[in-house]
């Protein structure tokens, strides 16, 4: 499959049929909570709640969630270490006086925030989120371009993988110089494919009456009062718990 693991998880999630607005409220609340509370215990609580929600009721595969979290984790680790290393003063680099506390705080906020965004990403397909942009007064044309990006992404990723596989089989990546030449040809092939696709799609859609835009009827995903209440109560409870603890 040429699918992206996070996208596959979103379409298969137990929360797929929940209203995107509900999930945005929940995850947005958790992101903000993770950012504004002290890392201990606030962000830690947020992180725990997010992981519990993702692996529990939302039924996101643990493997997908953890693998996706590796990317932000790598950045956060490198970034946090760099932030707390001290280069000024004499005697070369050393740790800042409060390095451990600062790094801990930075890592806590960032990991919890990233996890909360990942919860949204692994439960809500892009195509459910884009209509929300329209409600946020982003122009239709922009939302439509974004939705075409989403569809063509998979078509082009499919081409990318197949072409690269064909090049590899014909020894196209057997040295650095060959790898460069193959990658250049690969990029060019994907770009020209994307142009051809767009042109042919244009004809296909004109045949279906396209005149001004690419309007489609979004699915009806009803909002749940219980979920909304939980989305407000959860972060609020974390705020209370955090302030009691500190």
């Amino acid at each position, binding site marked *: 499959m040429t699918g992206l693991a996070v996208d596959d998880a979103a379409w298969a999630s137990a929360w797929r049929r929940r209203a995107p607005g509900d999930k945005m409220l929940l995850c947005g609340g958790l992101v903000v909570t993770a*950012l504004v509370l002290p890392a201990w215990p606030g962000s830690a609580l947020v992180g725990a709640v997010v992981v519990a929600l993702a692996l529990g009721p939302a039924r996101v595969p643990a493997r997908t969630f953890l693998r996706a979290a590796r*990317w932000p984790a790598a*950045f956060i680790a490198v970034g946090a270490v760099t*932030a707390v290393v001290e280069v000024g003063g004499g005697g070369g680099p050393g740790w800042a006086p409060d390095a451990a506390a600062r790094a801990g705080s930075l890592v806590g906020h*960032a990991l919890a925030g990233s996890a909360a*965004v990942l919860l949204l990403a692994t439960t809500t397909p892009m195509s459910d989120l884009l209509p929300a942009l329209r409600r946020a007064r982003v122009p239709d044309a922009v939302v439509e*371009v974004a939705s075409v990006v989403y569809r063509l992404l998979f078509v082009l990723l499919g081409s990318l993988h197949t072409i690269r596989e064909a090049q590899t089989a014909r020894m196209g990546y057997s040295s650095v110089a060959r790898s460069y030449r193959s990658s250049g*040809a690969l990029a060019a092939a994907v770009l020209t494919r994307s142009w051809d696709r*767009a042109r042919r799609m244009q004809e296909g859609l004109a045949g279906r009456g396209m005149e001004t835009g690419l309007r489609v009827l979004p699915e009806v995903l009803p909002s749940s009062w219980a979920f909304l209440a939980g989305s407000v109560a959860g972060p609020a409870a974390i705020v209370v718990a955090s302030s009691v603890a500190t």
Partner: protein
Amino acid sequence: MHIAEGFLPAGHAAGWTIAAAPFVVHGARAVVREVRENPGSTLLLGAAGAFTFVLSAVKLPSVTGSSSHPTGTGPGAILFRPPVMALLGTVVLLFQALLLAHGGLTTLGANAFAFAVVGPWTGYAAYRLTRAAGAGLMPAVFAGVALADLATYVTTSFQLALAFPDAESGLVGGLLKFLGVFAVTQIPLAIGEGLLGVLLFRVLTVNARPELERLGV
């Protein structure tokens, strides 16, 4: 490297969002105008955005054996111009945040400023200046694409330094630290992305001359 969700203090995240906004809005206006004049361009612009996303998934072969990914915005800046790339780049960053967990939502503004504004504008400026200096297409493409990559990471380093100045030496020290970690290591990769750009355009000049002419390259 995209700045991860939650890494920037709230004030910085908001500040960079405000800084990127005019460029992205300007790009959105350009896109709206283009689509109003020619409805079919929605598909071409979507294809350009999808290509930018996919280009950043191409593994950049590196001499050291490890490999990294290009930013993907340099060729787009030359082909589709920086205003459009400001918007497409932001859309791509949103997709990267939500499909690949690269970057984040509160840090989208900061990342957009580096990847979709400074990178494409620097790259495009380098491309135009190199051409104006009488150089051929390929040296200009190399300069444009490599500098778009490098400028992106210099900007990221600056953003991080501003948020986390060095305890002793302040902003300058912080900048040196983050440049050392995020930009200096990027120099070979920027050269790599420049080379990839040249190879890409070399194939395009043979395979897709009419398209290049239409895009005014």
